[in-house]
């Protein structure tokens, strides 16, 4: 089975510093992956390079076999890759429903139907007409999450989905992610909360100082001395 996402030797520099310094990954479809590493290890930068928000200086990124490192974010989105953000980026002056509707899909009525379906999925249907800016943090997080699902993407990148979220909501989110995987979607998440990563991800990539450090099943990674050293030692 060919990988759905391949990162090959990606380098991204800011000023004189390489935030990402030759990282390579390969993701098989239909699995949940985690991307971890201490602060400054380049996780978010890598995320941004993959989704087109930043442009890699060197290296290649292939999605479904197609080179995407030079594409703009909206183009990558239409190829079937969606993402959420570390800091919630809902559109505050739009209602929850409108937040979903703007995501480019086909006809208005179909989009509306799907939007309401998704809202019901996370039990937010009664807040459809509420301005997203007025929703609680957790509710906004959910809206951002289902917004990504509007076009039924094949791959979803989640940037710190557990950040600032209470236990109950978190479990709902994690269940939703597992259901997505069961539907055949691929999920890659950046996360600091180790419990989440270990409990959810099938394979974990570890970055340190912008480079690959280790990869493997959660249990293996947890025991890996280099990983422990990267987080706590030195």
């Amino acid at each position, binding site marked *: 089975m060919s990988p759905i996402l391949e990162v090959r030797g990606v380098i991204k520099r800011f000023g004189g510093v390489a935030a990402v310094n030759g990282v390579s990954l390969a993701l098989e479809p239909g699995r949940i992956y985690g991307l971890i590493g201490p602060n400054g290890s380049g996780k978010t930068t890598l995320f941004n390079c993959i989704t087109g928000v930043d442009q890699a200086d060197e290296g290649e990124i292939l999605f479904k076999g197609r080179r995407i490192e030079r594409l703009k974010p909206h183009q990558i989105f239409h190829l079937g890759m969606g993402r959420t953000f570390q800091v919630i980026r809902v559109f505050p002056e739009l209602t929850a429903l409108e937040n979903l509707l*703007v995501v480019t899909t086909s006809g208005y009525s179909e989009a509306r139907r799907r939007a309401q379906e998704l809202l019901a999925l996370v039990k937010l249907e009664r807040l459809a007409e509420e301005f997203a800016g007025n929703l609680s943090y957790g509710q906004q997080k959910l809206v951002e999450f289902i917004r990504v699902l509007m076009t039924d993407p094949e791959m979803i990148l989640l940037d710190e989905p557990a950040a600032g979220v209470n236990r109950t909501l978190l479990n709902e989110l994690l269940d939703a992610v597992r259901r997505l995987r069961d539907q055949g979607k691929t999920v890659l998440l950046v996360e600091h909360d180790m419990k989440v990563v270990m409990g959810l991800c099938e394979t974990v990539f570890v970055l340190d100082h912008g480079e690959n450090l280790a990869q493997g099943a959660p249990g293996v990674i947890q025991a890996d001395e280099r990983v422990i050293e990267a987080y706590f030692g030195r």
Partner: protein
Amino acid sequence: MKRWFPVALGLAAVGLALYPVQATGYGIRVMLQLFMWIALAQSWNLISGLTGYVSFGHVAFFGMGSYASSLLIVKAGWPWPVACLGGGAMAAVLALVIGWPCLRLKGPYFAIAMLGLNEVLRVIASYYEGLTGGGNGLSLPTLDASVQIYYAMGLVAAAVTVVTYFILTSRFGLRLMTIREDEVAAEAMGIDTLRYKLYAFLLSAAGPGIVGGLSARDQGYIEPISVFPLVMTITMIVMVLFGGKGTIWGPVLGATLLFAFQEAVWARFIYLHQLLFGAIIVAVVLLMPRGILGVLQQKYNLPRTI
């Protein structure tokens, strides 16, 4: 609210349509100018109010329309209504030429680019003497068509308002607004922000272009300084900010109120007047960033489409 508003609107429309019958030439001129300002403000709102990309050089489209349509009248013998539409089209083309490179820039840099635009166009208009009459100006064949131009201006003002209404109630409008709210997120959600910004920009240029042509036709004479006045940009901005950017009726409200103010103060105290406009802009930004309608919207929980 909902029921009496269309009625009031209808009555106003009828009143304005019948106005020329009773009014003096001066009165018609004044109202004609009001329509012009409404059209200008409403157009500026389309790009700057909806997408948040502040256009400091919008008067360029007015000037472009003035020159294009006047040249079409003088050199190609077109009848003025068609020439004015041609002016609008040329303004849209200019918007495409400028917008295609400049709208890629992030908001503040776009604003800087637009700041310089004004000066450049004034310089170019002076330079290409053969075509535009240079610093000497361009004269149009004499024609007394004030009443017709009154209706034409009114039509353009109404048209731009209607277009704004349709945009604000459509997904197209929602997407424009996402650019204002969070452009990075909009891009990530599949919205080709450059394309949408360009659409908005082109639409926002057509109105000033047509109106520029009409104004030129009404004056009968144009020269570079008169059709690229910086004060026009200032006025457009202050009208929209004051009335409420991003709303439908905000620009109309702002244009009407400030035009009345302008008529009272301008002729005698031109610098004081501009000074006050500057002060109003500062005051609005600090105290009332959403304008009058914005404040009302929040206070009375009015819908977005007012």
